[in-house]
């Protein structure tokens, strides 16, 4: 989230699209209710189902799953053509005025540089024109046909209300009503907030769904302001933290990157990370990248990271592909290329697509290690559960080690919430039986591995034996020790270069923030964006002062928010070019003539003069981006692409199947149903119920009583067509697998007309499996296709094709 849960109360219009906050985030949704009750805010819900968020909305518009970009580009087209644009924001604070170089073009669903064979673009032409002064060329008058604004206008022109209806199945009148309500928020004193979740991410073009709304929010001037923002409602208690800490194939904590093999040495690696400003005076804060990187390496390798060995650059592995994400690793597993796999609190047999393929992969491992507080299907993938998991254990040679871990109630530490608050918690109970903390387990594994390498030698032991592990009890580092390490500390005294008698930093002290990080080895810091979380003043994450000056919803003394305790990102943009708040009644910060002050920590240098420095300090432009240069694989503007399985061909680009640059593994093409395949005529989608959390709460008696049994949801019209009764058994199958469930026949789902064709929707809640307290059920991912988003490989769980028929239920073995 750019903003905080408590800030939603400040909004005028909430748009929930790509999520269902009332059911999936009920206690966060209370802030929507606050905004409605106290500010008279309105709520719009756009979703394939009339869900519980929709049931309390002021306006609901249906949409076919997988068509959100057409809807969003339609909204942008409407705002541009009806002059619903906050010009005082758009001109100075976005790259609308930037001129794009000759050679870049878009036609029939593709941008310049497409290579069909590689399913990839050469993106070299997707850049600004650079002037003789070395800066990007801008045209303040917006007359240049190649400036971003004119390219955008042209790009979205095809998404008319009629086209939106044709692609999305949303009636034109409903779309226009949404457009009208959204357009009202283009004034400086009205704001809209976007609340989204997996309904947008779990598509082969998920990242572009989100970009589409971000662009709209910029056009309306709603980023950086109270009651505005792009608010990703994240699904797990610390998934924000694990992402921040870079537990991904290609990341280093704080959104730094693991090197690729095209960067053989540190100098080459840094050469593409200069982040030289693209306009005069701009902050371009990533210019400090080297400080973050070197301090991270000092945290990892301590004295073994030196200037002479480029801070241990070769201790880091180098990538040969974009990433070894879960989809890639399970594809490799199925092809016999993986021997050992660890699952820490994760149940991939249910959480990733195409269960059949996942199970085949697990069966080819030599060893699977599970660390979990609970039984999972993954840990028991080799166990025969009849129709729910039909396997022959004797044929599966994988050794499985299952390690019992503590849960939240039994350990100490911090979690990052959706609004980037790092909140500390304390244990309340003793672990059951022999359960141990994950920290203890990881430490024990490390110490044993290190000992083996010290005794026996072996392949490149250096990064293992030199790992900085100077904890009081190396067998179990404490949460405090690790938190202090992430914050960062001074390793050697640092003196003022101008006055060498003056000590600037003192060895052994905690850093007060990332501004103190250095690239000469005198500071260490595990995760630069967390710096400030545990300073010399103590544990800032444990703060519990819930005062809220100005009733602004910021709560600056409650816990710690990254970065720098800032609660609303880009908050400099809450003021006009001169530093005056757009809406004085919703002041966040302001320029007092000498410095920035207010209810939030300013997201700009405290004394940076308003007209000199732009608000988007991380970007070399100093502005936000309506057009994203070469930074996304599938294009600098979003384009409507159909899901890989779809009831209709792409109306605006009939020859293009799915997202043209999404990665598809060779074996998987044949597992996708053809476009409009009559064998799989219904549009399937997966979702969650308010009584359950993923695959966890089926282990929990109360929640298993509340929602005991698997079901699928269909319209009355489809039920009638197929002779399916409410509460009757059905079989649902895709080209990859099948499940049996009870049918809920509902008015919440209606058939839609898409490109002249009636499309029925089949809703598949995901919570059942073959272990736990609830009745056994089928994992929903038996149905879903093995393909992910083109940029970050989030699986396409929200749009796939199925068939359905009445049934007598599963045959229990």
């Amino acid at each position: 989230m750019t903003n905080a849960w408590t800030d939603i109360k400040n909004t005028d219009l909430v748009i929930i699209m790509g999520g269902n906050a009332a059911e999936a985030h009920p206690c966060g949704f209370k802030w929507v209710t606050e905004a409605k009750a106290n500010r008279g805010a309105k709520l719009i819900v756009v979703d394939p189902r009339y869900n519980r968020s929709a049931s309390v909305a002021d306006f609901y518009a249906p949409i076919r799953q997988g068509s959100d970009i057409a809807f969003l580009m339609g909204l942008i087209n409407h705002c541009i053509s009806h002059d619903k644009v906050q010009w005082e924001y758009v001109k100075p604070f976005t790259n609308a005025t930037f001129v794009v170089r000759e050679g870049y073009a878009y036609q029939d669903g593709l941008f310049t540089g497409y290579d069909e064979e590689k399913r990839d673009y050469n993106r070299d032409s997707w850049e600004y024109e650079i002037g003789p002064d070395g800066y990007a060329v801008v045209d303040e008058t917006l007359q240049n046909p190649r400036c971003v604004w004119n390219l955008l206008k042209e790009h979205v022109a095809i998404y008319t209300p009629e086209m939106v209806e044709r692609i999305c199945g949303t009636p034109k009148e409903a779309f226009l009503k949404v457009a009208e309500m959204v357009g009202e928020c283009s004034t400086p004193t009205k704001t809209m907030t976007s609340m989204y979740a997996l309904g947008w991410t779990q598509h082969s073009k998920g990242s572009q769904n989100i970009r589409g709304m971000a662009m709209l929010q910029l056009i309306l001037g709603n980023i950086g302001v109270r009651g505005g923002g792009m608010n990703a409602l994240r699904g797990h208690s610390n998934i924000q933290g694990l992402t921040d800490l870079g537990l991904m194939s290609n990341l280093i904590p704080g959104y730094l990157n693991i090197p690729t093999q095209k960067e053989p040495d540190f100098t080459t690696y840094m050469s593409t990370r200069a982040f030289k400003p693209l306009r005069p005076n701009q902050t371009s804060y990533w210019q400090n990248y080297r400080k973050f990187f070197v301090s991270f390496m000092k945290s990892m390798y301590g004295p073994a990271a030196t200037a002479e060995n480029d801070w241990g650059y070769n201790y880091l592995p180098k990538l040969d592909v974009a990433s070894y994400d879960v989809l890639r690793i399970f594809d490799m597993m199925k092809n016999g290329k993986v021997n050992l796999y660890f699952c820490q609190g994760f149940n991939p047999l249910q959480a990733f697509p195409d269960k059949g393929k996942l199970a085949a992969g697990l069966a080819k491992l030599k060893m699977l290690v599970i660390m979990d507080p609970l039984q999972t299907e993954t840990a028991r993938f080799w166990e025969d559960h009849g129709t729910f998991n039909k396997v022959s254990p004797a044929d599966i040679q994988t050794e499985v080690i299952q390690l019992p871990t503590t849960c939240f109630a039994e350990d100490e530490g911090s979690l990052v919430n959706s609004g980037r608050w790092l909140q500390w918690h304390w244990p309340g109970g003793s672990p059951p039986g022999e359960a141990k903390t994950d920290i203890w387990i990881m430490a024990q594994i490390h110490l044993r591995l290190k000992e083996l390498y010290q005794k026996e030698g072996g392949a490149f032991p250096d990064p293992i034996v030199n790992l900085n592990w100077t904890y009081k009890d190396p067998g179990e580092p404490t949460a405090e020790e690790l938190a202090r390490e992430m914050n960062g500390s001074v390793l050697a005294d640092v003196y003022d270069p101008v006055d060498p008698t003056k000590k600037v930093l003192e060895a052994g002290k905690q850093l007060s923030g990332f501004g103190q990080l250095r690239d000469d080895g005198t500071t260490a810091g595990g995760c630069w964006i967390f710096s400030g979380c545990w300073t010399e003043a103590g544990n800032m994450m444990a703060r519990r002062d819930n005062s809220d000056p100005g009733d602004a919803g910021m709560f600056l003394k409650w816990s710690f928010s990254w970065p720098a305790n800032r609660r609303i990102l880009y908050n400099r943009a809450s003021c006009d070019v001169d530093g005056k708040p757009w809406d004085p009644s919703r002041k966040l910060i302001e320029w007092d003539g000498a410095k920035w002050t207010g209810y939030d920590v300013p997201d700009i240098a405290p004394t940076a003069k308003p007209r000199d420095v732009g608000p988007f300090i991380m970007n070399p432009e100093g502005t936000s981006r309506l057009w994203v240069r070469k930074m996304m694989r599938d294009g600098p503007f979003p384009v409507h692409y159909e899901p890989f399985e779809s009831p209709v061909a792409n109306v605006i680009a009939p020859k293009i199947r799915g997202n043209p640059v999404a990665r598809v593994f060779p074996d998987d093409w044949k597992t996708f149903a053809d476009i409009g395949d009559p064998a799989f005529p219904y549009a399937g989608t997966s979702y969650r119920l308010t009584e359950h959390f993923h695959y966890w709460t089926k282990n929990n008696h109360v929640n298993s009583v509340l929602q005991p049994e698997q079901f699928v949801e269909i319209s009355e019209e489809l039920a009638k067509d197929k002779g399916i009764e409410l509460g009757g058994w059905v079989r649902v199958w895709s080209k990859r697998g099948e499940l049996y469930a009870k049918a809920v026949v509902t008015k919440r789902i209606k058939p839609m007309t898409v490109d002249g064709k009636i499309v029925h929707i089949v809703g598949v809640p995901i919570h059942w499996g073959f272990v736990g307290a609830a009745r056994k059920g089928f994992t929903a991912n038996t149905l879903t296709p093995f393909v992910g988003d083109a940029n970050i490989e989030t699986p396409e769980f929200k749009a796939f094709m199925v068939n359905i028929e009445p049934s007598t239920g599963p045959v229990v073995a």
Partner: protein
Amino acid sequence: MNMELSRRTFLKTSGAGIAGTTLGAFGFSEAEAAVASAVKPFHLVNTTEARNTCTYCSVACGIIIYSKGDLRKGEKADIVHIEGDSDHPTNRGTLCPKGSALRDIVKSQTRLTQPMLRKAGSNAFEAVSWDVALDKIARAMKDDRDANFVATNSDGVTVNRWLTTGFLAASATTNETAFATYKVVRSTGILAFDNQARV
């Protein structure tokens, strides 16, 4: 005993501390005994409190865990109740249908309590000690890494990667756990490293 007596009147009439006596004066002595015997002691008496965060979604509602026994004194602590923290700015004490049943997930019948091993081809788990489990894991990692570590690619560039082992990290563990995990996993050269962010 056919007089109407609202709770408010009752409290006004009786007053705290002299309730027994007053009840007696009303002629309630038998009723008093019956009520007293039916009233269960308040179940949070003599519990310790710990501030914590709900383990489910990222609204991150504040919760209070009530336990018998005090971990801070080195005692065993048994969780008896979990409720919303009314001081918390986000949830202000409320919890959803999942959060309201948090105690049940802590106490789930399917919690794991000891290390288990499923041997190749077997149809059951068997209990093993922590030492056996951890030694097996370290040995398997060492052997696989030594056999498959890629020090240089075909162009002779140092790449120091290990691709035959992968690690899938959690989504509900602490930052501190995540950082310790990062250090241990990355130091081995593993690139097949991922978490639940995508799902």
